């Protein structure tokens, strides 16, 4: 067990769990979000692709998906706010021998209380979904997705063949949606027994691979549920921004009004229906803010119109990118927004995106951010 510095939050405090290419950090603030204190680094020198917080009031737990370039990937956990971390001796996310696959990285950790009080779902590279029934200590693969007949047509992107987004339906324990780069969006309506691709309406100009030209692999970058309606989902695709009003059965283009269709993350407001945020980047081949001016764009009408928000963000010579898991909201009122950059800056807005400031400038490249109010 690795012992390090914890954060000792009070009930009602906000914590940010930040994964980087060289370890993780935890920030703590009270509800005003005026001042943040930093703790860490945890897992020094290792990549932390994913984090999660299990908010059980009597025994809260932090999870982190940690990758050592040398020794592989595991899900590690802390039951004392980072003061000590459990690293399993044997891998707790492993591919079965018959799959002939080997774990690269753990991209997503998603508590799924709708399925069970101790259930955590994990998305990994190479693309597969895992389930834990013991709060992230051990995981088993979802066999139906692992053996999906379309798997031979999936193609890795620059970040690998990653299952990066896991959306358990907040009302239906049988329904789960996942995003895979590059394959697209798959949904199960039977608790993971079967999976169907749900890319209808998403533009794809290129044909599929030679062994399946009819298969048009999509590179879904990030999906989020609308705050009020889990049938409404927002999607930042590799090229394009979309909305589904039928749980992923079909998608409509909501990019008009934005300066670019390219970006990685998308965030839904924690309470307000029809409200979402994106961070457009110039283009696939130049993944930086447009003309060096960083802006977050907000819609309050489910994508019919968009408004730029940039007060406090650098408006010249800003050439960072923001990865898909590095932009989140908290659950406070007014909602806080947070994004980390590959340049190591961590930006905070405590007023729903109207005003921004940095709370860290010199972190390693940021891979993921999670915000959580401590119960």
């Amino acid at each position, binding site marked *: 067990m690795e012992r390090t510095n914890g954060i000792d939050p009070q009930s009602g405090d906000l914590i940010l769990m930040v994964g980087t290419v060289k370890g993780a950090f935890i920030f703590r603030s009270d509800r005003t979000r005026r001042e943040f204190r930093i703790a860490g680094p945890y897992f020094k020198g290792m990549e932390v692709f994913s984090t999660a917080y299990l908010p059980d009031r009597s025994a809260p737990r932090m999870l982190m998906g940690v990758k050592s370039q040398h*020794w592989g990937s595991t899900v590690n956990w802390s039951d004392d706010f980072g003061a000590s971390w459990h690293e399993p001796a*044997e891998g707790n996310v492993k591919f079965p021998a018959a799959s002939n*696959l*080997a774990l690269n990285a753990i991209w997503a950790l998603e508590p799924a209380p709708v399925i069970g009080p101790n259930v955590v779902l994990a998305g990994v590279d190479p693309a597969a979904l895992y389930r834990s029934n013991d709060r992230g200590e051990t995981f088993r693969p979802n066999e139906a997705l692992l053996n999906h007949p379309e798997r031979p047509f999936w193609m890795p992107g620059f970040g690998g063949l990653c299952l990066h987004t896991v959306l358990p339906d907040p009302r239906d324990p049988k329904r789960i949606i996942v995003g895979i780069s590059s394959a697209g969006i798959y949904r199960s309506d039977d608790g993971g027994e079967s999976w169907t691709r749900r890319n209808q309406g998403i533009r794809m100009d290129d044909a599929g691979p030679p062994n399946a030209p009819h298969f048009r692999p999509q590179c879904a970058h990030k999906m989020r549920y609308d705050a009020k309606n889990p049938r409404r989902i927002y999607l930042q695709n590799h090229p394009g921004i979309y909305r589904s009003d039928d749980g992923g059965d079909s998608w409509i283009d909501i990019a008009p009004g934005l300066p670019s269709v390219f970006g990685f993350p998308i965030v839904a407001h924690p309470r307000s229906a029809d409200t979402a945020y994106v961070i457009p980047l110039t283009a696939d081949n130049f993944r930086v803010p447009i003309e060096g001016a960083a802006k977050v764009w907000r819609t309050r009408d489910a994508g019919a119109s968009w408004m730029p928000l940039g007060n406090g963000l650098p408006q010249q010579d800003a050439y960072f990118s923001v990865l898909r898991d590095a932009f989140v909201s908290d659950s406070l009122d007014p909602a806080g927004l947070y994004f980390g950059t590959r340049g190591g800056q961590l930006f905070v807005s405590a007023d729903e995106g109207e005003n921004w400031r940095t709370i860290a400038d010199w972190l390693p490249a940021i891979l993921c951010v999670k915000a959580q109010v401590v119960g």
Partner: protein
Amino acid sequence: MRFHLPSALRKWARDQEIVELSLPLDLRMTIVEAFEMLGREYPGIRQRVLDDRGNLRRHVNVFVDGENVRFAQGDTTQVTHASEVRVYPAMSGG
């Protein structure tokens, strides 16, 4: 056979720098099989040296009797009861 472990792996072998595997004098096996056998007592070592497919991890260097197995027979490099195995994390940049 003796395994010399880097500092990062010793916590998975009760903080030992060197761990021994007793083998019959006439037994030969591959280096991967040797790590599988070592993993019965020290599963944390096996986990970190071999991937899920049972291959040596890409950024782990293993030397058998002074020779890097990557420049020998790789995962099928033969070892015996007298082999000296050394494990090193690869130098990496960034």
